[in-house]
């Protein structure tokens, strides 16, 4: 099996998504609530949802990479 394409996967660039996820989830949650406590808990849920969605997409892409490079 050829692992070379996987090595080229820019994993480090994924860290740049983290501040964006935090900002997006907090701002989105803040437009749905007025008090700080519900904003933070909703923001946490939205953030988890986004990270989960990204994880699924990455898993699919990595699987496709394996399949193509095989």
């Amino acid at each position, binding site marked *: 099996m050829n692992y070379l394409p996987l090595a080229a996967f*820019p994993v480090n*660039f994924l860290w*740049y998504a983290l*501040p*964006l996820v*935090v*900002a*997006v989830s*907090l*701002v*989105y949650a*803040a*437009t*749905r*609530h*007025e*008090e*700080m406590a519900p*904003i933070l808990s909703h923001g946490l849920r939205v953030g988890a949802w986004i990270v989960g969605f990204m994880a699924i997409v990455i898993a699919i892409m990595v699987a496709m990479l394996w399949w193509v490079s095989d």
Partner: protein
Amino acid sequence: MVKGLRPEGIPQNVCRKAVRYQQSGGNLPVNKVAVDPQSQKTIPLKDPMLAAFLAWLVPGLGHLYQGRTAKAVLFFICLTGTFLYGCYLGSGDKQHDVGWARVVYFQWDDDDIRYSYFGQVGIGLPALPAVVQAFRARHGKEPLFGGFMAPPRPVAATGPVHGEDLAWKALANQPTLDNLNSELRGYFELGTVYTLIAGLLNVLAIYDAWGGPVFAQPRREEEERHSRKKDEKEKDKEAEPAKA
């Protein structure tokens, strides 16, 4: 619904909030208040149009004007922080000296139409130097502050067209778009994404300053409405054969 309460031009949902608000003894005009359906707390929106404009100008400023300080701080930190970090990613360093915040610029010609700027300008004042730089270039003046938010140099002069020729001369010392991409590598796109998302997110904050939070409807109320609709449909179905 209280008869005659809804003035013309006030949407239905605002009116429902206003009914609850006025029943609780509120005295602000109906379009200048939002009501949290769960806690029944009222949120004074003061002058919503002015608040929206201020929210566009500086993220959080509209909320500060309305006295919603916690949200003002949250919006300011999240949105301005994201935008500035994007500008930082899109800036050069000693090795790749292309100037500061090169990912935010306004340009509209055949070679490069910068659509991203229409999202980035959602952040307001922090993105406006790009308009000043583009305006200067169009009138043959060199960009200020070492090319901060200045448009890149056009690849070639496209003929003796007055405006474009002037811009080309004014931007002669600036890097081209190709230079920016090769010098900043992936960070050019990354910086663009950061600044674009900050601008677009501020649109949500502007709406929040104008109309208050988009509260989720309490689940019980939603379920009741759903079951009422279902009952009505069933009744209609039963009534149809009877008519026939």
